[in-house]
């Protein structure tokens, strides 16, 4: 049975992160990996080309070299190894998992905030601070989303948890309570 994307991403990112922690270079690794990920996101065919059999081995190696040329030693090895093992398709997932590990280690929490109107900077900051306090994180990185359907209040989604303080939900609860009585 072939392994799925998530399992692969977990294994490779664990090894890479442990290496980075050993060399005390986690932040440098992450910056570099993020750039690499951007390249792959901007060129969706790139992973497919490198993993597929459309190009000859030499051609693929040349393409790979343009990626590795500017990379630091470890990242260069990492890319070369992924290529050798035929895991280019999993690269983005591995980098995502690496970022997750980095965030866990640094106690950074990512949260998606949905509000009915666009939040001002102060409001966003206040929410981030309150949320950090609630979940016990050092730093909260917010992604903002505007959805007029929730009418008012905010919904914060983070790490498989939803903190729903929207007016829409309260109206829905009220409706259910009234119907049940």
């Amino acid at each position: 049975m072939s392994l799925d994307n998530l399992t692969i991403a977990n294994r490779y990112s664990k090894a890479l992160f442990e290496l980075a922690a050993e060399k005390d270079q986690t932040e440098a690794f992450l910056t570099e990996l993020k750039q690499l990920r951007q390249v792959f996101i901007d060129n969706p065919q790139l992973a497919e080309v490198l993993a597929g059999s459309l190009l000859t081995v030499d051609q693929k190696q040349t393409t790979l070299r343009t990626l590795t040329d500017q990379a630091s030693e470890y990242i260069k090895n990492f890319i070369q190894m992924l290529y050798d093992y035929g895991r280019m398709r999993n690269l983005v997932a591995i980098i995502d998992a690496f970022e997750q590990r980095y965030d866990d280690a640094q106690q950074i929490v990512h949260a998606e905030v949905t509000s009915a109107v666009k939040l001002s900077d102060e409001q966003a900051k206040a929410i981030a601070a309150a949320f950090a306090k609630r979940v016990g994180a050092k730093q909260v990185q917010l992604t903002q989303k505007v959805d007029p359907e929730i009418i008012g209040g905010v919904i914060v989604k983070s790490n498989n948890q939803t903190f729903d303080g929207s007016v829409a939900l309260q109206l829905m609860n009220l409706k259910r309570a009234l119907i049940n009585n």
Partner: protein
Amino acid sequence: MSIKSEEISALIKQQLESYQTELSVAETGTVTYVGDGIARAHGLDNALQGELLEFNNGVYGMVQNLESNDVGIVVLGDFDGIREGDTVKRTGRIMEVPVGEAMIGRVVNALGQPIDGLGEIKTTNTRPIEHKAPGIMERQSVDEPLQTGIKAIDALVPIGRGQRELIIGDRKTGKTSVAIDAILNQKDQDMICIYVAIGQKDSTVRAQVEALKKFGAMDYTIVVTAGPSEPAPLLYLAPYAGAAMGEEFMANGKHVLIIYDDLSKQATAYRELSLILRRPPGREAYPGDVFYLHSRLLERAAKLNDKLGGGSMTALPIIETQAGDISAYIPTNVISITDGQIFLDSDSFYSGVRPAIDAGASVSRVGGDAQIKAMKSVAGTLRLDLASYRELESFSQFGSDLDAATQAKLNRGQRTVEVLKQPVHSPLKVEEQVMILYALTKGYLDKVAVDDIARYQTEMFDFIHSSHQDLFDTIVSTKKLPDTDQVNAALDEFAKQFQPTAAAAK
């Protein structure tokens, strides 16, 4: 009905106040796959096996598979409204159904919601649908009879309260009729009946409900139904929901009769959802735990000890066979789980022997202890008589001359088969059964023409009810056969006045 606006605004005000501070915190996951009654979701790291989940559109699901990266969920309802990327929320509850007295007389679905249009069921009690069966020390041996009112069953394969007796046979051999008759006979017996229809046509279930209503049996019956148009998970859950409702009564010291009609369809539904959940298929493509599926359900039938109130739950599971093949996977499984089986034979059914019970293949492993003494004494040799009759019958078809003893055996055999015939929905009281079987075994029927036996039976019952009611009363009160001289005298008296029909006399 007058609605007071002040009351409503007061209520709304009250609720608004309590909602102001509430912030809903829920663990959520993302749906990655939906189809055929199941969904997969990513996230939900802390979900429990069997936990209820809520989808965006208000539909509930139940956690079935916990895997390394996602959870497999069976959707309990309409899965059309669920999309990939939807959020699914943990509820922290496990699946429960409403239970209690209020359920009696109602027709409900597998979730315990009423579907008979008689309004809301007012009960606050619920029970988890999956519940561990009573343990060894909580039980006692089966000692009370459960009268089905069917002569062939009460005499040959007696059922005790707390027993599990399988009804097995091909399609259209009267399996459901046997079960429905057993329910009808529980009138005034202080029994509560639960009829669980799994994958039965809605029109059929409607007809059964009408039959139960007509004979006044809905006063003590709950009908749980999961029709063929419902998603497979509901068919899989319906028997457990019925068992949970029955357990509530059993725990309160009452006696319950539960009928699962039928478990082959439940197994098929379970196979469907297991295959879609990608569990490895085994024999006949059923998953590996299909035995456990039925054993954990039927183990919940029990006779509780007196300390726990002495309640009981008798289960009559039904299995449909294909062309009489009882060695298929599901039939063998359920035969080995139950305490005996009633085998219905399509050949006898079509030759007019109804109920078409195959006396040779049907057994009851514990019910004999529960049979009343009077019945034991008249039914003791019946099984052997029938077996030797079957043997002789095929032999005598060669048409050679038969000696008198063989003739007599054949005669008795024909009459035995005739006596054990019984029309649908007309259960007989145990005292009446004892009387006709007594007449049979003592040879009172040997002189009666075979065609006259049904009439003999009804007229004999009328006669004894009107002139010798004390005989019936003795059987009911002492559970023993009355003084044989008295019975013989009464039967002799009746034989004198019984007129054979002209056609039969020829």
